């Protein structure tokens, strides 16, 4: 099967499934770092959708947007992991059920 036989529907389906896996992970896992990785997975599935539309419709805006999403994901990774480290330093845990200092 050559690459032309793959329609855009397949890419959209795959990225929907990836996004659903990411949502399920965010809602079920308790480890802050794993939740963080699931968010990265969701960003990636959206990137795949954007890139598929960009390639199939012949418009470069989608791929430029994927580039910006990657830049935002990198910034988010740096800040998010710094937050996790300072949380662990103060609370000795990364379990998000035990981190409730914003709740009163």
């Amino acid at each position, binding site marked *: 099967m050559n690459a032309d036989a793959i329609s855009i529907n397949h890419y959209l389906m795959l990225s929907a499934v990836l996004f659903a896996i990411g949502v399920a992970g965010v809602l079920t896992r308790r480890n802050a770092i794993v939740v963080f*990785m699931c968010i990265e997975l969701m960003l990636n599935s959206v990137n795949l959708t954007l890139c598929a539309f960009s390639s199939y419709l012949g418009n470069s805006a989608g791929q430029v947007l994927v*580039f910006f999403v990657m830049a935002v*994901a990198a910034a988010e990774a740096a800040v998010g992991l710094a937050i996790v480290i300072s949380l662990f330093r103060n609370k000795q845990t990364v379990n998000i059920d035990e981190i409730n200092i914003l709740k009163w």
Partner: protein
Amino acid sequence: MLFQRNPVMSAMCLIANFFCIASLYLLLKAQFLAVIQVVVYTGAIMVLVVFVIMLLNLGEEQKLSEKLGAAKVLGFALGLGFIAEMAYLFSVSGQNDMALSGQAEMIGSVEGIGSALFGKYLLPFEITSLLLLAAMVGAVILAKKKI
């Protein structure tokens, strides 16, 4: 990656996943994005994540959920609902045999992305650099000894 108790194994599965997505970008004739995916995601972000996991010396999660049965059930129900919704949409929309655009090869090359990035999208590109600077300052401040 969802069902791994150990965060390191979860991270390894995610890295494999990123490589697969990079190969899909190659199929979509987006060479620049495929390379960037491998370099930025697996090369930078996941190395950072694995480094933090090792640094915190996390054990395995005790159970995937102890007392939060309701949240777990809700999460899986919402995920399955989303998949079902998508399946319904795709079944309704029917098969479209749209071929890959002829311009895809030109768009996905480094030249195409670069001319779009530095031509039409110059202002967002510069704002992205500001965002990265802000993230860098924030990470340094958060990682200081005492906050």
